[in-house]
């Protein structure tokens, strides 16, 4: 048979005969191709704001002054290339000024806000803010967990679905996943608001919102949130939220029986099995790491 010069291309579209496929598997070619195909799945280049680009085209058509639009274009592209440097997924709607940042699973992301305040996001977290309006109202919404080092100035507000945190210049950590919210203050003073409850906390203090109720917690002794140094620490948090954190940190799925006991302790971010021991051993439960990212917990 003549050498087939479209074989791989047809494999990609799933159009091989059974016999061709069998040969591809036996020779090991399939495995190598699959790896290339999988790795190239996540490849993307920055999105294009079609609406804004089209408006630009309309303007240049009406004014018939290409030079001014080219300058505008250069500025926009410059901003776009800076986004690439940030190394995390970046989405920018030029018209509304809305900006979102996401930290990928298994990675932290460090972001500088327009006023040079710094945000370090824990993995799987995202923030969202209005860039245009930033100078007037320093407000952003957070899903997940992030550490803030805020430049002094007027109030800086972090909104989450459980409540909001308001500060002047300071350093603080907000954790707001599905069930509860946890705020730690490292410097200065922050105000936590939830429904109609309001509480101010100062350096080394922390607060918990569990099921809509505020609880003060033990003072913190570390200088920075531990997760920024590769450790997740918990104080009297439900064991299910600890496993949720493991799921995010290691990109796995944890199956566990109902267990509402509180857990105090920590786990490391560099090895799944030792992290599981750190949580399971003191609680007297067993774990099993199965293939395809599954972790089974049993009593």
């Amino acid at each position, binding site marked *: 048979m003549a050498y087939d010069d479209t074989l791989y291309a047809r494999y990609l579209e799933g159009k091989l005969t059974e016999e061709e496929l069998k040969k591809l598997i036996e020779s090991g070619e399939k495995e190598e191709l699959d790896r290339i195909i999988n790795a190239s799945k996540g490849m993307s*280049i920055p999105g294009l704001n079609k609406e804004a680009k089209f408006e630009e085209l309309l303007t240049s058509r009406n004014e018939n002054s290409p030079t001014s639009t080219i300058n505008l274009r250069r500025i926009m592209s410059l901003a776009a290339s800076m986004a690439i440097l940030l190394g995390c997924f970046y989405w920018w709607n030029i018209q509304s000024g809305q900006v979102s940042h996401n930290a990928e699973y298994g990675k932290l992301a460090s972001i500088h806000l327009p006023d040079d305040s710094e945000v370090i996001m824990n993995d799987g977290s995202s923030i969202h803010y209005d860039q245009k309006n930033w100078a007037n109202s320093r407000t952003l919404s957070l899903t997940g967990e992030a550490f803030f080092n805020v430049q002094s100035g007027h109030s800086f507000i972090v909104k989450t679905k459980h409540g909001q945190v308001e500060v002047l210049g300071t350093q603080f950590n907000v954790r707001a996943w599905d069930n509860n919210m946890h705020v730690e203050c490292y410097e200065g003073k922050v105000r936590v608001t939830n429904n109609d409850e309001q509480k101010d906390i100062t350096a080394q203090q922390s607060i918990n919102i569990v099921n809509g109720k505020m609880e003060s917690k033990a003072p913190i002794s570390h200088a920075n949130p531990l997760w920024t140094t590769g450790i997740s620490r918990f104080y009297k948090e439900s064991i299910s939220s600890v496993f949720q954190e493991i799921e995010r940190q290691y990109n796995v799925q944890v199956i566990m029986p109902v267990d509402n006991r509180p857990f105090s302790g920590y786990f490391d971010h560099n090895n799944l099995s030792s992290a599981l021991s750190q949580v399971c051993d003191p609680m007297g439960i067993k774990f099993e790491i199965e293939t395809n990212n599954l972790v089974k917990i049993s009593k």
Partner: protein
Amino acid sequence: MTDNICSEKTFRQIYFEHCEYLRNFLYYKSGDLQLAEDLMQDAFAKMWENCKTVTIAKSKSYVFTIGHNLLINKIKRNKLHFNFVQKKKQRQDNNDPQFLLEESEFKKRLIEAIDQLPENLRVVFLMSRVDNKKYREIAEELDLSVKAVEKRMHKALLQLRQIHKNI
């Protein structure tokens, strides 16, 4: 001619449908995102100037051809830069950090290898993998036969397979 593309509504529709693909195509060839966006705009501007002579059916290949010609005059090859966007819900096949490290190393090598593909192979590969286009669509845009696109894709994959040997 009644079915030309001069009305803003029609033109807008065509623009929204093809602009990103055209930009990507120009980017795959040049490696210069800014240049790709500029030439994309210029190509559409030019098509609008000549809108009376262009039908909807011809508009896609028309604007791709203009864009390509504009690029040929400008071309200065740059390195390609890609972001890898991890889909949020996507689970890895293996959570071992060593494996993840190898995967990210593999992706880095893959991008380098793609960058070094001959242009005609690179463009076909990226249109297929990044823009998720069917060979038929790629053939139409590049004015090739489907068979020719398949051959290029096969060759591209054949060359990219070499990176396994170097790891």
